[in-house]
């Protein structure tokens, strides 16, 4: 017997919270992206645990898609960061406030 599903869930919530804290708090754009990655990872953990609980493979299939999306998003996000760094010389999130007002 492995652990109850609720423990898996709780671990995933903790990881998700850590990722959210990182994305919300850090000023560096790269650190924000890292927070997003952590969150996606935690979601994948939930899916795998659920797949084991219900004895279905759908959860695992979905994790593959999560990986795919994470990869695509990281690629584009980092390309954006590089672009921004070239344009404005800063990757501080506070520097970009054109939407102010």
């Amino acid at each position, binding site marked *: 017997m492995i652990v109850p599903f609720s423990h898996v869930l709780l671990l995933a919530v903790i990881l998700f919270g850590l990722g959210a804290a990182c994305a*919300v708090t850090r000023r560096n754009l790269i650190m924000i992206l890292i927070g997003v990655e952590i969150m996606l990872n935690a979601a994948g953990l939930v899916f795998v645990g659920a797949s084991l609980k219900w004895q279905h493979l759908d959860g695992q299939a979905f994790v593959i898609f999560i990986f795919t999306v994470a990869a695509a998003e990281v690629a584009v996000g980092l390309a954006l960061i590089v672009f921004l760094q070239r344009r404005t010389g800063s990757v501080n999130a*506070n520097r970009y406030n054109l939407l102010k007002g």
Partner: protein
Amino acid sequence: MRTTLFLLIFLPFLSALLLAVIGRRLPRRMVETIACLAVLGSLAMAIIAFASSGQKGQVVTLLPWFAVGDFSAEMSVYLDPLAAVMALMVTLVSSLIHIYSVGFMREDEDYVRFFCYMNLFVFAMLVVTLSDNLLFLYLGWEGVGFCSYALIGFWHSDEVKAAAGRKAFVLTRIGDVAFGIAIAFFFIITNTLSLSSINGQAASLSAGMATALGILLLFAAAGKSAQLPLAVWLPDAMAGPTPVSALIHAATMVTAGVYLLIRFFPVVSLSPAALLTIAIVGTGTAFFAACAALAQKDIKRILAYSTISQVSYMFLGVGAGDITGGMFHLLAHAFFKALLFLAAGCVIHVLNEEHDIFRMGGLRSRLPVVFWLFLAGSLALGAIPPFGGFFSKDYILLATFIHPEPAYKILWVVAAVTALLTPLYTFRLFFMVFLERPAAAKESPRNEQAVRPLPRLMVWTLWPLAIFSLIAGLLNLPSMWSGNEWLARYLSAVPGGVPSLTALPDIEGSMEMGTGLLSIIVLGLSYYLYRPQKFRATPTPGALPQTLEQLFFYGFYLDRLYQVAIVSPYQRISRFLWERIDEGGLDRGFDSAGKLLPIFSIGLQSWTTGRLSTYLKMLLLGFTVILCALALGWYPW
């Protein structure tokens, strides 16, 4: 009959409406023609109604008005001999004055507004005259008040004139409150708003109720007719154009009060106390106004006080229990007072808006026609036999004298004295204006060459009025003089009308002789006191000691009393309420409450920093809120 009455009342109204809407785009002649034709049309309808109405009154419903629940009010009309003769007088005088106004307003650009209001006034006055439904009557009552206000303050750019209009409106409004209360009482007691039914049920009123209603109606009438205590607006109302003074403040609106009392005579006459009060008010006001007229300098103010005095006679007539005398004097007074006002308008026009009689003089040679017309009016007003005013005033004095109550004898004495004051001030005015001054006294700054030409219309319309005022006595010639007492018999079917006063012929005869003789003596006295040679001594010859002169000139300081006792405290209170409470308290309170809103929005502004971290925080916040909602709503705690 229905069409006739409808046209009679509504022709002026439709004309006013037409002029109000498109009057400014029409040529001047057309506007004047429409206005005059409307009133002349009403006159024609009034003649038809007069000719075809019988002795019994009839109620005719003209238009449905409104209905709420099971209460409804119609525009209905009660045509009895009283209303017929009054409508005839109103339309006749109005027509002549409208035609006069065409000449009077010749140089004024605002004629559309003037004629519109005049027509509206005629409509409202006819409603008052003829209406059966009390709410319709109130509509007309208020309408005449409003038109009076609008026309007194016609030249509203002058603050003094506008204030005079306001004063008139406020004071008549005070009376209207009493009228409204009376209408409410009528409705509660008799459950109907029809004048004829109320008069029919009059016997069912208790004595106390009848007294109360009588006093309320008296107060309302005192407002409209400028009796004490609400008399102070009429002298100031002379700020309006002279045709307005002639129409509204001589012939029609000021008589509406008396007319109201006469219409409600079955109710009023149930209470001897009310009748006595009416008589006392009438007599007191008559004396007060006659004294005040004796010291005035403005020609129109003299005539205004004279109007107050003469209307008081009509009140006295009603108070003495006889409506024929009141109506007789009303009709005669309408003619000669309108004549006097219009002739005064001619004089003022010619002398370039000069109002002070001590600056006039010698107009006999310059305006001979007006001289004779004014003389006719003055003779009628002064009750010099055998002209119009003599018979009517005498009728009232007779009715007062033969009244069974002893208090009326005192009233008779006062009224008789006032009747002798009347020719005194009338001819004071006449001699001052028209007779030649001695050359030494002609230092008035009036420029001899600066006189304006008189439009002929203004003079021609005076002729019918002059003729009527001279022969008005024929309306009700006593049988002693082989007259047929036509008016008394005509009104005998109306409640309160008696076919002939039950007086002994010799009382009647001696009284008439006495008053007639005394009037002529007073005329002579007036000539002696105010003849032009007196100008050598003083520029403003007065026959009274200085203190009395001042007292009379200021109208016994009644105006000042009201100002100090009522108007000033009221203005102070309203200023306090306005500045401290309304602007300071309420406005500032609302402003401060309104300032709370920017505080909120500034607080909200901190969310729109444009920074990524803020938005991410908001996302997390939203996520937490959704989680809370799920937790609270989903789980069975």
